């Protein structure tokens, strides 16, 4: 029963969606174009959606610029270390909670879930980090986020779908729980481990709020923190932003700026096909839990 009117409506619907999709895509296309154009063309405001006088000069300059490469290197190091530690802690926390012989499971789960709803807030955590001597260390960016109750619950749910007999028969054969987790449970759970690693990694890569709070030393700037200072320097050059002379960098050439943005975005774009698939699953689990 598809009438002519209905077909016109379908085209209209697709057009509205295409407009929304363009709004999402074009800013990044513009950024790519800026990063691939000559600085003169960028300064002359000639660049729209396609590169003008295409060149890799901005990227070359970034490679030579120690500060961007160092921030990028630190971000990679931090993300890898964080993801490893967070996955280890999440796994060794989730597995015992699937075992019926563990006493006090309910109490422990309550202990964990409470942290999803209540927190001390920004400043008490800051004072704690300061008291522990973790300001200006990578640990301030790792440990507070290393056990996500949300990811933990997903992990526990996934592990509890494995048959009980796996653990029980291995116990009878004399294996320890450590061996069972490492040799049986983990190899069977690689998909969920990959999924949650991605959650942790993307979260760590994109977050810079904690770095704003805890990090002043430039050697520990993440690429996002560096980018945020570039943005703030461009919008409020009069404001003193962080200690260290380099934070008062002169306005960065726009093409260079765009290339820095693209480098910070690149890992996300490369991982995007997987991101989408796994995060949608995560969003669904989250909405069911709510």
């Amino acid at each position, binding site marked *: 029963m598809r009438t002519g009117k209905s077909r016109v409506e379908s085209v209209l619907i697709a057009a509205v969606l295409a407009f929304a999709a363009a709004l999402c895509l074009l800013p990044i296309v513009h950024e790519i174009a800026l990063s691939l154009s000559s600085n003169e063309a960028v300064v002359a405001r000639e660049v729209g959606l396609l590169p003008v006088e295409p060149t890799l000069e901005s990227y070359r300059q970034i490679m030579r610029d120690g500060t961007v490469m160092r921030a990028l290197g630190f971000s990679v190091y931090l993300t890898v270390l964080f993801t490893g530690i967070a996955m280890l802690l999440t796994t060794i926390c989730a597995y015992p909670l699937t075992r019926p012989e563990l006493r006090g499971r309910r109490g*422990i789960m309550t202990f964990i879930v409470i942290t999803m709803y209540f927190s001390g807030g920004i400043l008490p955590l800051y004072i*704690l980090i300061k008291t522990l001597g973790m300001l200006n260390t990578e640990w301030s960016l790792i440990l507070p986020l290393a056990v996500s109750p949300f990811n933990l619950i997903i992990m526990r749910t996934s592990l509890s779908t494995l048959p009980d007999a796996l653990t029980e028969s291995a116990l009878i054969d004399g294996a320890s729980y450590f061996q069972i987790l490492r040799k049986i449970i983990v190899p069977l759970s690689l998909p969920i481990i990959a999924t949650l690693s991605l959650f942790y990694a993307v979260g760590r890569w994109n977050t810079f709020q904690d770095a704003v709070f805890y990090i002043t030393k430039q050697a520990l700037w993440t690429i996002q923190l560096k980018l945020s200072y570039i943005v703030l320097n461009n919008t409020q050059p009069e404001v003193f932003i962080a200690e260290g002379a380099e934070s008062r960098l002169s306005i960065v050439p726009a093409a260079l700026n765009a290339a820095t943005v693209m480098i910070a975005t690149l890992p996300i774009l490369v991982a995007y096909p997987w991101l989408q698939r796994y995060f949608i699953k995560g969003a669904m689990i989250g909405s069911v839990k709510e």
Partner: protein
Amino acid sequence: MTRRRPLEQLWQLYAMLALPLLVLFVFSYLPMLGLVIAFEDFSVFKGVFGSKWAGLGVFAEVFKMKTFWIALRNTFLLNGLNLALGFVAPIILALLLNELRSKPLKKFFQSTLYLPHFLSWAIIGSLALQLLGDNTGLVNDVIARLGGARVPFLSDKGHWVFTYTFIGIWQNAGWGTIVYLAAMTGINPELYEAAEVDGADRWRKMWSITIPGIMPTMIVLLVIQIGRLVSIGFEQPYILGNDLVKGYSEVISTFVYQLGIMSGRFNVGTAVGMFQSVVGLVFLLAANAFANRKTGTSIW
């Protein structure tokens, strides 16, 4: 049952739990205890347990600060605008996506609409600057080339409020469709077939079947968002705000940061944060009770 020595091994399970639970205790529970500094004449040197008790004096001081009330107003203003203008955006997008017959086209639109969700606020801040800057933004270049006047998207208070709101919607509307699309797949297809037999057109089916079908989801999300009216993230206002628009861009989270970490007034900042949490809880409970009375839907 020939389960051998299972109880002898049990300590291993507790050993595994020890480290993660310790991390949670230190970084989630200790800060909760640290909230006592909101009732103290706190000094960093004397520490949380060595500082003098101040009772509600710190809160009295907070309520006397004009800047606190401005930050609170701005938090409500930005969240309120986001709710008023942004709540329906994912619903509309989801309804439109649901009408697409072509699977690949739907997939393509979804992939594109989800993308902003994965960009960090530092990156979005950079994009905003490149596109919406007064003299350097592409959008203003286009406006100027078409003969219009440049729009101070980021540097005028009145404009900034809407720029902030729009960027927030831009980041989240696409991602927000997921929950609604999932709710739509749960609607019984026989309802649509019956409606078609009765001669209902596309819009009629949308209005009478799809929207009622996703209504519980809408109410739950509305309740949650109302509950969050007083809580606001740090990164978006921090990166998009600037001195020219500070009268509107200073919100509770950035205010707490300014008070505590930049100015060292930890007890005052903590009291502000605590006030926000308590009011937020009251809002959530009130919104939930209201929704429960009116529609029988609850978020618990």
